Structures are given as C-alpha cells and as structure tokens.
C-alpha cells in the first residue's frame, strides 16, 4: 500500500495528464463533481436494478400462492427460467434493439444497432467511459435488463396451470429479445413516441401494459382452465397459499421503489436526489391507496373483504403511479393509486364475464391499471397531452397484441400450447416435472 501511495501521483501524471492538471489547476472541484455525478448515477442504477431484480422473487411467490398446490413447482420453474432467459436474450439482442443511441435503420422505429450488448473495459477511466456525463454502461444495462424481465414475469401468472413449459419459454424469448425492446425503443430509446411527446416515466405502458397485452392475447388463444366456466357460471379456483401471495406482494412493493426511483436515471445533484425521494414516497403511498381502496370496495361489493383483491389492489396502485411518480403530491399519488385499487375489484369479475381466465389478476393489474396510470399523467404533469398519451397506448397495444398473437399462433401450430386434459387435472407438477412442491400433503 505504501509503495502504491508514493507511486500513484507520479503514475497519474504520466498516464493521465489531464486528471493531474485538473487536480492541481485553478478549479479543483470540477472533475471531482463530474466524477461524483457519474458515480451516484451508476449507484442509483445498481441499487434500483437489484431492487427490480427482487421483483422476480415477488412474482414467483405471488404466483406460487395463487395457483393450486399441484401446479406450484411448475409455476416456480417458469419464473426462474423466464427471468434467466430474459437476462440472456436482452443481452444478445434486446439491449441494442432498445437503445440505438441515434443509429436507426428505420428512423424512430427500428434500431440500427444489432448484436450483443458490450460493457466498458475493466477499470475504465473517465476519458474512456461510454458516457462520462451519465453513468456506467454496466449499471445501465443491469438496470434496464430488470425491466425487460419484469415484462416477462407478468405473462406467466395469467397463463398458469394449463400452458406447457416449452412454448411458454419460447414466447418469453420472443418477448424479451424483440417485442419488449422494440416497442421500448419507441419511447425510451428516443424513437417516434418519444418525439411525439409521450410521457411514461417508469413504464405503465412500456412495461406493464406490454406484459398485460401479451398475457391477454395468450389467455384468449389458450382458453380458460378446465372447470373454470361451467354452464354459464364461474367456478372459483382458490389459490394454495395466501401467505406466499402476501409475501410476494410485499416483495413487489419493495422492488417498486427501485423500479420507479431508479427511473429518475440520475442522482448526482440535490434536485435529482430530492426527486428520487419524492418518487419513493409517492410510489409507497399509491400502493397504500390501492390496497385500502380494494379493501373497502371488496367489502362493499361482496360483503367480505377479499385478501387476494387487496393484494391486487396494492399492485394496481403501484402500476397506476408508475407512468408519473414524480409530479403528483402525496395526496394526488394516493388518489391515483386508489382509483387503480377500485378498478381491479371491478375488472376481475368483468374478465370472468368475458371468460378470460387470468389466474393471478395480471390483466386487470398490469394492463388496465397500466392504461389508467398512463392517462393519469395528464392530471399532474402539464407537459403531457391526453391525445399523445392515448395515441401511444393504442400504438403499443396494437403492436404488442399483433406480435404476441403471431408468436402464440405459430407456437400453437407447431407444438401446441396446452397440456392435455389428464395432465391439467392431475396437475402440471407430476405430469410435466415429476415432482411436487408439497409432497407430504395428500391431494386436495
């Protein structure tokens, strides 16, 4: 250490004359301050990124709790596999498809950068950093990858208990490699929706509605679970473990601080760190508003509060605030979340009326509240225009539905999407995996 210390100034002078000059020059604070912006921005991405990563655990627990015990192992398998596939395919194709950095092959629509994401060199210096005024590429990639994986997580819950493992995983690849990054480039990559003035802070539309549209398309093509809709009546299929579902919801709630807070994309100034703080507080209160609204609405509507709907309500609040978590006051954020909470309680039975079997309520939570949250931006952000918001919702919706439907239909034709009747009734765990989540309990 001592040797290094004595050598360091000399080495710095030789290798990095500019840095040495700045340290000795008349404005010693400038480089240090730019460094700290780079460092704090990168730190925000890393902390936000691992919080959003943890949402994968939240989705896994929520879904494990809301499926029957005979399908729990399969649901967990899908969750681990989909996250890992998202990580690989976002690296291989998605990252550069989503962030063309101005190099378009079709202006504003299709990235001109193809191929795997590349990180900065080991021990990169300020001069060689890809964007010294912003953040490290590694932190940016890590953070953005988590959003892509979140989109894929949304789909698995809706289609639970009846879809085969492999077609689901192939769909996940198409979603995370192409469908999600392509439409995300239109907004976050600086494409035509961004040019049009579309505002979607952390992705009510770009992430949540896209997962929701893909899930909706899949649910319609796949059909409902056996016995769910019989003789014009809805047969409830209660989940196996509401403790896990509740834990999953709290994990998602925690992860959302990274999801929305990290989307400030900057933490190097007083203003930015204050904004990140506002976002954390608003995100939290929107979830609380959604949960309480669902508690009260389900009590009034069904005479008893329904825990599964309260959990959906908290998530609905979170999705609703995601398009604009910065500008609302705490009161406005609570109300935006609360409206989301009311929406899900009405939307869940409505989906049943349409005979769309959504096992965990992902379509009401992520799609319908994603649309609501995107519209709600206009209430607190004067830069938003309702026309542009609606236009963007429709563009992203039509694209995702068409692209997803094409993939689902091709998979259906080639390998079939559904397990056979016997497998579905016996449970996917034993039939497809040969192992159960709770082998010491008898069949129920």
């Amino acid at each position, binding site marked *: 250490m001592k040797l290094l210390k004595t050598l360091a100034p000399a080495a710095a002078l030789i290798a990095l004359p500019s840095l040495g000059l700045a340290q000795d020059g008349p404005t010693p604070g400038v480089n240090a301050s730019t460094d700290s912006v780079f460092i704090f921005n990168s730190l925000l991405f890393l902390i936000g990124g691992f919080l959003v990563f943890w949402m994968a655990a939240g989705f896994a627990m929520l879904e494990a709790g809301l499926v029957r015990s005979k399908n729990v192992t399969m649901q967990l398998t899908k969750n681990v596999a989909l996250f890992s596939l998202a990580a690989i395919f976002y690296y291989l194709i998605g990252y550069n498809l989503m962030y063309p950095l101005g190099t378009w092959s079709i202006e504003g629509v299709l990235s001109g950068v193809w191929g795997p994401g590349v990180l900065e060199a080991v021990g990169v210096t300020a001069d060689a950093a890809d964007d010294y005024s912003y953040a490290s590429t590694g932190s940016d990639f890590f953070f953005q990858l988590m959003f892509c994986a979140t989109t894929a997580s949304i789909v698995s819950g809706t289609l639970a208990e009846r879809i085969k493992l492999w077609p689901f995983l192939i769909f996940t690849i198409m979603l995370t490699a192409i469908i999600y990054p392509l439409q995300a480039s239109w907004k976050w990559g600086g494409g035509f929706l961004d040019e049009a003035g579309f505002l979607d802070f952390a992705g009510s539309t770009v992430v949540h509605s896209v997962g929701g549209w893909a899930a909706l398309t899949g649910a319609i093509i796949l059909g409902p679970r056996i016995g769910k809709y019989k003789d014009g009546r809805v*047969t*409830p299929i209660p989940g196996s473990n509401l403790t896990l579902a509740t834990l999953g919801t709290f994990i998602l709630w925690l992860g959302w601080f990274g999801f929305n807070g990290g989307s400030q994309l900057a933490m190097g100034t007083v203003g930015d760190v204050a904004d990140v703080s506002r976002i954390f507080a608003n995100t939290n209160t929107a979830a609380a508003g959604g949960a309480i609204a669902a508690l009260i609405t389900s009590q009034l509507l*069904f*005479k008893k509060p*329904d825990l*599964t*709907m309260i959990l959906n309500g908290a998530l609905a609040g979170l999705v609703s605030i995601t398009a604009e978590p910065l500008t609302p006051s705490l009161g406005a954020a609570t109300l935006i979340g609360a409206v989301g909470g009311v929406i899900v309680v009405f939307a869940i*039975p409505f989906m049943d009326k349409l005979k769309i079997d959504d096992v965990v309520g992902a379509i009401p939570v992520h799609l319908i509240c994603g649309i609501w949250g995107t519209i709600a931006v206009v209430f607190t952000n004067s830069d938003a225009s309702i026309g542009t918001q609606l236009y963007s919702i429709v563009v992203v919706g039509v694209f995702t539905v068409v692209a997803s439907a094409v993939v689902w239909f091709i998979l259906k034709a080639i390998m079939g999407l559904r397990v056979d009747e016997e497998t579905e009734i016996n449970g996917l765990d034993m039939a497809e995996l040969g192992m159960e989540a709770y082998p010491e309990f008898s069949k129920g």
Partner: protein
Amino acid sequence: MKGTNVKLIIATIKPFKLEEVREALTEAGVRGMMVTEIKGFGSQSGHTEIYRGAEYAVNFVPKIKLEIVVAASMADQIVETITKTAQTGKIGDGKIFVLDVQQAIRVRTGETNEDAL
C-alpha cells in the same frame, strides 16, 4: 350374544363448541371420547362464499364428530349435556345418535363391558 349395558353415543357438533362440550362431559363423569374432524351436510345443506368476485357453494360444512362409549345408565344424562352445551338455536347445531354396544374390551387388561370403560 348377551347384550351389554354399554351405549355408544355419536354426536356431530359445531367445531367452536368442542371445548365447551368436552368440559361439560368431563364434569358429568365421562372418562374418554374420540374426536374426528369431519365434513358433511344435513338440513343446513351448505352455504355460499365469494372468491375474487365469483360466488361458489360450500356443499360440505365442517363439523366435529364425537364418539363416546358409556354405561347405559349414564347415556340419557350425557345426551342431555351435549344437547344443552352444543346448542346455539341456529340451523346446523348437529345431531346425536345412541347405539347399543355389543362388546367393549380394554386392550391392556382384557376387562370387558362396563369394567372396560
């Protein structure tokens, strides 16, 4: 076979009444009972619940089944005790059946009938 002076009392009661009934029966001199968690329906014939906004029928209602073997001389008193303590006056309070027991044996000693209780 000669009849014994031993009766089997089968009672179905509401689960929340179990502890009260057990205390009353112990006080009345009952020295053993068998308890089973069961499901079934009688005149109460189930009810409906709501899960995620969809109504569904609960056709089998959870109950507790007690099986008590006592000397015939005690049977009426036991039945009365159960009736009194398990009663709420609302539908679904349960039923009591009294049967003759042909033979009762204590495994440890081989004692029979009333001596086996």
